[in-house]
């Protein structure tokens, strides 16, 4: 192992980490950025490799596919054409995309409306039972999403729990059409993603210094005003994380509309799924995925900038 004098410790530990001669590389980095930076870079190498393997690589594959075409038997023909993108942005999908964003937005707002009080309750009043409550929030994860969604079919169908109860109570005499409607899809999304909202909200509310709320009360703010001016602004990071964690997968979800939806609840996730399976047009499916991802990324960027800075003004 060469140990260049000018790099001292950083070089030594970097080499030790790599278990081999890391001389020239880290020497170069060391000169460029300083020793600790070089070590940090090398320490991050496994993470980077991981990201590269499990994020960048599949994305790269999808990107390559998206410029290709569909072979006669559903195989991918590589090429370089924007056809798939022009098809992806065809007006045909506009209602589907609007519906997907609409459903996801409503579900996000509903999870926020339900998750916030829940997270607040656990963080502030949970006391010694905090962990039990958190586990209860996460319990649904112990069952597959599919099974949980199926159980909504049992609850909502015409002879399901809700209709049976309503009929038994003589509130209705004909079963309500609850299933296979936008209502049931939004309900399914809201239910399915509630923990994704609650947990980050809990994390940020838990961190929140309770004396800040007392300080607000002390300065004349009623409970509701303290909530609006102190608690909520300080839980913005949790709100951002929660809304993203709900909204993004909700936009692309296909299981929920597949199982709980009707003929008019097609979401963009279903379209993409159809391309990959039923239509076996992977190139088109890839272009659709990539376009959706791009739209979401752009949206997230503006959202985080707006919400993230607004309250700090």
């Amino acid at each position, binding site marked *: 192992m060469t140990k260049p004098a000018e790099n001292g410790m950083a070089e030594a530990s970097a080499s030790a980490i790599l278990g081999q001669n890391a001389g020239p590389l880290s020497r170069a980095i060391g000169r460029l950025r300083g020793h600790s930076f070089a070590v940090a870079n090398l320490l991050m190498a496994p993470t980077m490799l991981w990201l590269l393997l499990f994020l960048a690589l599949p994305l790269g594959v999808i990107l390559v596919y998206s410029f290709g075409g569909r072979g006669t038997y559903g195989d991918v023909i590589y090429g370089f054409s924007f056809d798939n993108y022009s098809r992806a942005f065809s007006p045909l999908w506009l209602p589907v995309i609007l519906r997907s964003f609409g459903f996801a937005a409503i579900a996000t707002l509903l999870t926020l409306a339900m998750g916030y009080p829940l997270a607040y309750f656990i963080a502030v009043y949970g006391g010694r039972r905090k962990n039990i409550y958190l586990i209860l929030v996460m319990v649904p994860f112990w069952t597959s999403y599919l099974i949980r969604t199926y159980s909504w079919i049992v609850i909502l169908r015409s002879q399901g729990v809700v209709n049976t109860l309503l009929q038994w109570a003589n509130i209705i005499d004909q079963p309500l059409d609850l299933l296979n409607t936008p209502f049931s899809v939004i309900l399914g999304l809201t239910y399915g993603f509630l923990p994704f909202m609650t947990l980050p909200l809990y994390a940020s509310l838990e961190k929140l210094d309770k004396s800040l709320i007392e300080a607000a009360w002390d300065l004349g703010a009623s409970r509701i005003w303290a909530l609006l001016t102190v608690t909520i602004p300080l839980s913005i990071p949790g709100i951002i994380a929660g809304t993203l964690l709900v909204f993004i997968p909700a936009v692309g979800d296909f299981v929920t509309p*597949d199982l709980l939806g009707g003929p008019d609840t097609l979401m963009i996730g279903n379209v993409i799924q159809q391309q990959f399976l039923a239509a076996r047009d992977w190139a088109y499916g890839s272009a659709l995925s990539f376009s959706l991802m791009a739209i979401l990324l752009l949206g997230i960027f503006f959202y985080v900038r707006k919400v993230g800075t607004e309250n700090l003004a």
Partner: protein
Amino acid sequence: MKKMDKELRVMALDGLAGPMTRRGFIKRAGAAGLLVGASGFIAACGGGETTTTAAAGGGTQELAKEIYFYNWSDYIAEDTIPNFQEEFGVKVVYDNYSSNDTLLAKLQSGATGYDIIVPTDYMITTMLGLDILQEIDLDNVPNVANLYQRFREAPFDPGNKYSIPWQWGTTGIGYNSAKVTDWVDSWDMLWNEAYSGKITMMSEIRDVFAVALFRLGYSPNTRDAAQIEEAKQMLIEQKSLLKHYTSDTYIDELASEDAWISHGWSGDVFQAQLENEAVMYSVPNEGSLTWVDSMCIPKDAPSKHTAEVFMNYIHRPEVAAGISNYVYYASPNEAAEEFISSEILEDPQIYPPQETMDKLVFLEELGEDTELYNTAYQELRAS
């Protein structure tokens, strides 16, 4: 094609595991028990030994220690595999899938080591197009002689060069005879406004269009864009009457009377029938689709010869009949008729009468023209 586990399709895609319906659960549990029992049995007989056997038509060739059989779930009799293992001393590693899409995706993802797979007719064409199947040495499968003639000259594989049929069925209308007062003998039923909100259509692209094409008097395998467009318009009109598009949940929905009229596969409707006696099945007069799932050998199969021995075993009349008697699907094996219970053999829903048979068509892989259907389907669903 065994469609009852279609519901697992999404799950398989998701990498999730576990069945969701009660029926699926019970059957699954049973299958697991069967597997465990089978391997236990093998161990007991010291079945790990390599055995030599004389194939009926050919010379003597060594059998592999084990073969890998990838089949639709719940699609085999309880004793089919144990009996084979006992007789031939070959361990059968049995694995299940629940959709052609899953099967294809798995094969395309690389070498999988399966010796036998059971794709559906049109999928065989696709797989041949993708060049992932290998030719079967029929000398090792003399029992193909037991097949009905029409399965020996199926359009997707005349002469059984690449496929040996497993079980077959039809596509039609499942309906609740207590709720549906009209006579169900036409696809028109799926456009009947009296049952608005109680009708379901399958979500398979070609199957959906086949309904409208039959109703219009066209071939379900048409490559004529105008006819497909006409069918699309007809399907768009239908949308407002539908509860939803589903290829899996309609079994439950028929049983629970959430759906009264469902476009579906024969076997699925029989599943619903077991739970609700009012559920009936009908193959419309305009004609309908028939399908057959067939055993094929992938290109990379490790033990081709043993796979062929297994296929031959399957088409012994008693073995083929045993499967039908257990799973309630029709057998492609004519010689098996004498061993199939009369209850099944005489059920017109399973073994349709000749005039119905004459109107049954296989879906054909259309190659490039599949695109016509894909596009039309997207327009239908997005409309």
